[in-house]
C-alpha cells in the first residue's frame, strides 16, 4: 500500500472574527497550507469540507467554500462529526488516496461560532444530547462532561485542583502559540474561583466558542516526495463510536469507550504503543476530558489521570507533552477546525519546526479528536 503524507498545513488564528465570512476564514487556512506544501490549487483533486453544520448560517457550506477556494470542478462535500469533523475528514481523505481515486486531497475544517446570535447558540446547545430523552430536561455540553467529572472524582478521588492544573498548563502553552485565542496565563486559584458552569466544572474548566479554520493537504507518497523533503506520514488511524445517550453507556461514566477503541485501532495500524508517542494533542473540551483522555489513550494508569496532571507529566520535559499548543481550552475550539489544527501542531513538531515549544527529537505524534458528548472519536498517529 502506498504511504500517505501530510504535505501542507495551515491555520487561522483562533479568535472572534467579525471581520470575515466562513469562505474567507477557510481561504486563509487553505492558502497557508497550499503555500506550505509548495503546490498549486490545480494539484488538488478533491476537497473535504468539515464543520458542525448546525452552527452555519450557510446550508451545505462545501458548495460555497470549494467555489471560493477555486476547487471546482473537483469533488467536494461536507463532513459532520461535530467536534471531530476534521479528524474524520482526514480519514476520508486518506481513504480517497489509498483507494487510488485521488493523489492529492485538501481537508478544510472551519467554524464561525459567533455568526449565530447568543440566543441561537443557546437554542442549538440545548439540543446537543438525545432530543427525545435527554434534552427535554435541559442538558448542556458542560453538564454532560460534568456528570463524567463527578463520577471520576467519586471513583478515583480526582480533585478540582487537579482539573485546574490542566487549564493552567494549556493557558501557559497558549501564550507561546501566536495562533491561540487566549494569551494570558492563569493560576489554579483563578480556576477555582471562576464562576460555576455545571458543578464541578467552572468557567476555566471549559473551552470557549471561537471562529477559525485549519487546512491539511494530504498526498500519495510519489507526489509527496516530489514536492517536499520532509513529509510527515499518516501511520495509524482509528475511528470509533459510543452510544449517544449516557444511559446506554457503561455505568462507570468515567471513561470514553470510543476513545480507547479508536486508540487501539491506531496503535495497531501504526505498530506502536502509548509509550512510543513523543507528544500528543488530545481533545480537552473540558479539563476533565483531558484527564480521562490520558487514561483512555494509555498515557497513565486508569484512575491516575488526576495525579498525572498534578505532577506536571504532560508539560514539555514530562513523561509525554500534551496540548503544548494550548489545546481546545486555550487555543480556542472552532468545532470543525479543531481536528485539523491538532494535526497542524503535530506536523510542525515532527518537522522540528515548533520553535520555543519544540519537543526534542520528536518522531511520533498522536492526535485524539472527540465528537460531541463523546459519541465519536478519531485518533491519528503521525510519524517521520
Amino acid at each position, binding site marked *: 500500500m502506498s504511504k500517505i503524507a501530510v504535505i501542507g498545513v495551515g491555520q487561522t488564528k483562533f479568535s472572534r472574527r467579525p471581520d470575515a465570512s466562513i469562505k474567507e476564514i477557510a481561504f486563509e487556512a487553505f492558502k497557508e497550507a497550499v503555500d506550505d506544501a509548495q503546490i498549486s490549487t490545480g494539484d488538488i483533486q478533491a476537497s473535504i469540507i468539515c464543520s458542525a453544520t448546525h452552527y452555519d448560517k450557510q446550508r451545505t457550506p462545501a458548495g460555497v467554500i470549494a467555489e471560493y477556494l477555486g476547487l471546482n470542478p473537483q469533488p467536494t462535500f461536507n463532513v459532520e462529526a461535530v467536534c471531530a469533523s476534521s479528524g474524520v475528514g482526514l480519514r476520508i481523505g486518506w481513504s480517497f488516496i489509498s483507494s487510488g481515486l485521488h493523489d492529492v486531497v485538501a481537508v478544510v475544517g472551519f467554524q464561525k461560532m459567533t455568526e449565530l446570535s447568543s440566543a441561537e447558540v443557546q437554542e442549538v*446547545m*440545548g439540543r446537543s444530547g438525545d432530543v427525545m430523552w435527554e434534552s427535554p*430536561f435541559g442538558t448542556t455540553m458542560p453538564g454532560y462532561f460534568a*456528570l463524567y*467529572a463527578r*463520577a471520576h472524582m467519586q471513583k478515583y478521588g480526582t480533585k478540582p485542583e487537579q482539573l485546574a492544573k490542566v487549564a493552567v498548563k494549556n493557558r501557559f502553552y497558549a501564550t507561546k502559540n501566536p495562533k491561540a485565542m487566549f494569551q494570558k496565563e492563569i493560576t489554579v486559584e483563578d480556576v477555582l474561583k471562576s464562576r460555576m458552569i455545571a458543578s464541578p466544572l467552572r468557567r476555566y474548566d471549559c473551552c470557549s466558542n471561537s471562529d477559525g479554520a485549519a487546512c491539511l493537504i494530504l498526498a500519495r507518497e510519489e507526489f509527496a516526495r516530489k514536492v517536499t523533503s520532509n513529509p510527515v506520514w499518516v501511520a495509524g488511524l482509528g475511528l470509533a463510536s459510543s452510544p449517544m445517550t449516557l*444511559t446506554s453507556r457503561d455505568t462507570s461514566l468515567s471513561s470514553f469507550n470510543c476513545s480507547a477503541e479508536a486508540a487501539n485501532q491506531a496503535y495497531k495500524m501504526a505498530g506502536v504503543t502509548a509509550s512510543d508517542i513523543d507528544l500528543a494533542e488530545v481533545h480537552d473540551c473540558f479539563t476533565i476530558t483531558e484527564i480521562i483522555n490520558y487514561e483512555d489513550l494509555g498515557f497513565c494508569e486508569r484512575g491516575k489521570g488526576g495525579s498525572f496532571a498534578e505532577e506536571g507529566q504532560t508539560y514539555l520535559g514530562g513523561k509525554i507533552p500534551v496540548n503544548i499548543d494550548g489545546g481546545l481550552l486555550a487555543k480556542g475550539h472552532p468545532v470543525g477546525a479543531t481536528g485539523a489544527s491538532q494535526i497542524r501542531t503535530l506536523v510542525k513538531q515532527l518537522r522540528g519546526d515548533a520553535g520555543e515549544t519544540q519537543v526534542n527529537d520528536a518522531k511520533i505524534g498522536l492526535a485524539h479528536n472527540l465528537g460531541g458528548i463523546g459519541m465519536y472519536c478519531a485518533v491519528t498517529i503521525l510519524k517521520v
Partner: protein
Amino acid sequence: MSFGKFGKVSYVSETKLQEFEKALEAGRIMGTKCKTCGKLYFPPRADCTCMKGDIEWVELKGNCRLLTYSTIYFAPASFRYEVPYILAVAQFEEGPTVLAPLNKDLKEDEIEIGMSLRLIPMELAGGRVIYELRKI
C-alpha cells in the same frame, strides 16, 4: 400527539412509543422488554437490536441508586429561568439507567453518590409530564 407533552421542553412528538406518555400521566414508569432475547430497555425502545423479536411494555418500580449528578448554572434558552437545577444519572434496581432532574430541594451536601432515590412521575403546569428523582 401523545409524546409532545413529555419533558420540560419537547423536541419530538412523533414516535412509536406513545404509550409511554399515557402511562406516565397515569403515574407509571414504563420500559420495554424484548420478548425474544429478554433485554430490558429504559428509556424504552420500539425495536430490539437483537433484530429477532417484538417488544412488550413492562413497569419499572422506580427504585434506583445515584450514579452521578451536576448542578447546571448555565442553561439553554428554554431553561434560563430554572437555573440552578440538578441533573442526575441513576440506575434502576432492574438494571437500566435514567437521566433525570434531581429534586431541587436537595442541597449539594445532602447528595451522595450511591444514595437510594426514587423516580417519580410528575405533572407540571400546562399538562406537561416529566419524571424526577427524589430522595427516599
